[in-house]
């Protein structure tokens, strides 16, 4: 477990109409899930993408530093080597004109793995994420697989990249309840067995209750509260967390 912490310090993202995200600090630890919650438009997705400097044209990351065990790293070296990403609607995250095998080969080639070793690695990772029908999935294109399977394919790609950390941007909001539950089980299993450090961006307090160790609450581009998951559910300090919890109580009523 050589790398233990991945820190994000002082992230600031500016658009043409001023700052969208201001001095956000986050800390991810291996084997733990840090949830980043907030209403939609609070900038949580921007933070997730901004940390890896994956912002679309027109938005610029003016400040922000990534530290691996305290040592500063440029985002380009973190992407795909230290941290992987899982996106919201998986279907549009895959290149429509290339099949899953080519996506996998691409990622493995980056790690210097090719030929039979690559095929073995692919088989192993797909097994790990529960994609049993290996051959069909690898030959398939994005529009031929369900949302749940594609989501798990993303996890498989992260495993292939052997990145210690994983940033998940609302991975479950587009899935039906069953695939959502199966996806979260898989995530928890990877956290416990492989010591994966996960940043889980969501607005669903149920998911937070089930997986997260500690929580950061964002509102209007700023982090307004930082708590352990139990602390948050029992004593929500900021108004934003209270509104999120009230909405959750009405819907599901589950607590950690």
């Amino acid at each position, binding site marked *: 477990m050589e790398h233990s912490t991945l820190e994000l310090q002082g992230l600031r993202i500016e658009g043409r109409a001023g700052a*969208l995200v201001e001095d956000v600090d986050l800390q991810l630890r291996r084997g733990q899930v840090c949830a980043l919650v907030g209403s939609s438009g609070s900038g949580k997705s921007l933070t997730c993408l901004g940390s890896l400097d994956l912002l679309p*044209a027109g938005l610029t990351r003016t400040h922000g530093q990534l530290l691996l065990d305290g040592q500063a790293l440029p985002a380009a070296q973190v992407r795909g080597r230290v941290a992987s990403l899982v996106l919201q609607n998986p279907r549009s995250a895959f290149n429509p004109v290339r099949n899953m095998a080519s996506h996998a080969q691409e990622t493995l080639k980056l790690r210097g793995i090719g030929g039979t070793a690559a095929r073995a690695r692919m088989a192993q990772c797909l097994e790990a994420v529960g994609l049993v029908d290996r051959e069909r999935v690898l030959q398939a294109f994005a*529009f031929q697989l369900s949302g749940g399977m594609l989501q798990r394919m993303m996890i498989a790609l992260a495993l292939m990249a052997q990145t210690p950390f994983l940033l998940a*941007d609302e991975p479950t909001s587009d899935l039906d309840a069953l695939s959502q539950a199966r996806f979260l089980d898989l995530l928890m299993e990877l956290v416990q067995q492989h010591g994966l450090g996960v940043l889980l961006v969501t607005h669903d307090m149920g998911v937070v209750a089930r997986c997260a160790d500690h929580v950061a609450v964002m509102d209007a581009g700023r982090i307004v509260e930082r708590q352990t998951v139990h602390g948050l559910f029992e004593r929500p300090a900021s108004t934003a967390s209270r509104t999120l919890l009230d909405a959750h109580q009405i819907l599901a009523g589950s607590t950690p």
Partner: protein
Amino acid sequence: MSVVALLRRPALAGQNSLMIGLVLVSLLALLAVFGQWLAPHDPDLVDLGQRLLPPDSSHWLGTDHLGRDLLSRLIVGTQLSLGSVMLTLALVLLLGLLVGGVSGFLGGKVDLLLMRLCDMFMTFPTLVLAFFFVTLLGTGLSNVVIAIALSHWAWYARMVRGMVIAQRGREYVLASRLAGASRWARLRQHVLPNIAGPLLVLATMDIGHMMLHVSGLSFLGLGVTPPAAEWGVMINDAKEFIWTHPQLLLLPGLMIFFSVMAFNLLGDALRDRLDPTREVH
């Protein structure tokens, strides 16, 4: 995606190109509507004594081969040129979207037949089609508009069809299918906005293309009934004076250049405003 994000989202083509586009288009619209009153002289007044004059105090841009004031003919010509092109574009976009959309969306037999219909129309060079129309209905700009539209809509239909197929794979379309939205609603809400991009570009570039078709056809005498002023016809009339008085051809050419630029800048800016695929989650 919240409305705030939509507005704040950066105009990729840059704020100023939207401004220039809007200014030019409104200028052209102004010329088109108030042309007659803005023109300093009567555009159709033939005066052989004043023939082929260089720009001077009374004729700011000089006179054409029959002594008519060039500036007035350019201004008044806006109405016919732009009007006919807009009409043609509207016709072409309507047909293209309809046939292309239906064909791309439904696929199967319908797609096959509609595409063969497209092939039939695509094969008719505008010239041949225009000639048929003229022999049937006589000359005049309306027949030229129909002829150009009939031979151009197939372009758009194939483009739209290609994009609709590409978009159909997109997840939100499938998601809305799950939500039971009717096909037509799906087509309108999800698929069409996404094909606005390349379609807008094709339409704005086609403005110049179609105007030159009018000029091309007027060598057959098919254009606007003389002596009315229209840029395409002016270009064709100036053909004879290419070597001695190039400005007769340069000026209408410039007007077409500015029209294409205006609508293209506007098109680009609109596309970036409209284009949801660039949204940030």
